[in-house]
């Protein structure tokens, strides 16, 4: 069986387990939502929220990533399945890719929900918030899609380019987060106290993703007057990070969980 076919098998298994257990919908999403609400209460100044909202989205994503990774490897260690895969000679690169793929899918769903939450909770501070509210309140006045696209950007920004930038940022940042999370999740799974070890390893490692993704989203939504064109250099950083973490993780995962 090819590495890619094995990876898809493992990803499908992880997503099936998640569909059964509903950990993401019942625990991770509420956790992320509460985090967003808490930030909104604590930073109860419009100009502050205007400035930090993109970063808050990615911070909430990172915290949720830690829970998702714990869960992803929890199902492997509950009854020794990760060890069994190692014993069975399942390609470690396929295990890494499969688990990272499943994690990325869950993260993408989470990020979409967080962006919607940001629009709702920080709506008064971000242009997109007003646009979406307008979309729901007066849907017959104008084309709804155009309203949303326009709302995702500040005045003067191209809504299509900004949306492309936003989507590209989400995808590339998600790939990087999933790769790093899977790598360190696999490493921490073999140690006692993995609950504390995982954040210690993961948070510093994903710092470049947090910074890059925040800057790129700032450009996409026009925070502090940032232009869309300024965001692509950050997307480049995210893409390089994702490729490096993906390739490095696939190569390093075997030795990490073996011997």
């Amino acid at each position: 069986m090819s590495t890619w076919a094995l990876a898809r098998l493992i990803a499908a298994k992880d997503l099936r387990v998640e569909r059964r257990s509903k950990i993401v919908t019942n625990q991770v999403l509420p956790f992320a939502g509460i985090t967003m609400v808490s930030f909104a209460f604590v930073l109860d100044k419009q100009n502050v929220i205007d400035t930090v909202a993109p970063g808050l989205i990615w911070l909430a994503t990172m915290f949720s990533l830690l829970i998702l990774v714990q869960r992803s490897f929890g199902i492997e260690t509950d009854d020794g399945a990760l060890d069994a895969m190692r014993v069975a000679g399942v390609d470690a690169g396929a295990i890494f890719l499969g688990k990272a793929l499943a994690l990325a899918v869950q993260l993408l769903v989470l990020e979409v929900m967080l962006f919607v939450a940001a629009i709702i909770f920080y709506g008064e501070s971000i242009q997109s918030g007003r646009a979406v509210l307008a979309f729901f309140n007066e849907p017959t006045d104008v084309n709804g899609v155009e309203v949303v696209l326009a709302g995702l950007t500040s005045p003067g920004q191209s809504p299509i380019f900004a949306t492309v930038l936003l989507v590209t940022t989400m995808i590339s940042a998600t790939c990087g987060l999933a790769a790093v999370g899977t790598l360190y999740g696999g490493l921490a799974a073999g140690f006692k106290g993995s609950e504390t070890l995982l954040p210690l390893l993961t948070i510093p490692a994903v710092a470049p993703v947090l910074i890059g993704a925040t800057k790129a989203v700032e450009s996409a939504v026009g925070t502090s007057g940032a232009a869309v064109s300024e965001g692509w250099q950050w997307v480049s950083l995210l893409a390089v990070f994702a490729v490096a973490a993906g390739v490095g993780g696939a190569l390093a995962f075997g030795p990490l969980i073996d011997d």
Partner: protein
Amino acid sequence: MDAPQPPSSMSLPQTSRVDDAASRADPRSNQVIVLDDVVAVLGQFPALAGVTLTVERGEIVLLKGPNGAGKTTLLRLCAGLLRVERGAATVLGFDLATQRHELRSHVGLLGHQNGLYLDMDVRENVQFWGRTVGASDTEIDQAMVRMGVAGRLADVPVRKLSAGQKRRTALACLVARRAQVWLLDEPHAGLDAIGRDELDATLVEASQAGATIIVASHELERAGNLATRIVEVIGGQVHDTRATTAKAPGPSS
């Protein structure tokens, strides 16, 4: 290649991959495991200090010995999980010094945990492990029937199974992924009397189907009745080996 073949009545799935592995074994004998003065270390500690042992196809071998004697280490070595520091070792014809990663997909090691996904049902677990080696739906169904987890149990989440049912599901996974050598560490632990009887019957049946089985156990009376040979391990060495009165059920008998 006249490598020993299981009897035609067995229901162990036949595949070219199995044949490839079987063809690696010495065609002049039924020897599946050959260890000659093998040394393996755990950290700085020589957990196996010169083990010499030969196991033939279809045998059920009981490893006995005190705690820390090296029984589990011996099983892990045979599964290709430990390096051979000294001596010569082959399992299914794979040289453990150079091919232990290649060996792994041909052997099954079942320790205190079952390696199952608790939120998935029995069928999904067996399917998953079978699919990792490209097993067909028919092979997967056969494995479940052989281990008695087909029918109403098939759709039950593993989390809701009894310890014995989980054990049988794990063994079905071993069958589905075509393991030819079963390495079982305390397989009776946690099972009630019925579960133990079922497990014993399963092991005898698997042996009859051509599987070679090594069991590490402290439950000498039960496992001893099952085994065709008892090997005593003390201090990382084989201290004694003797055949039992049990008739070897495998094809070599």
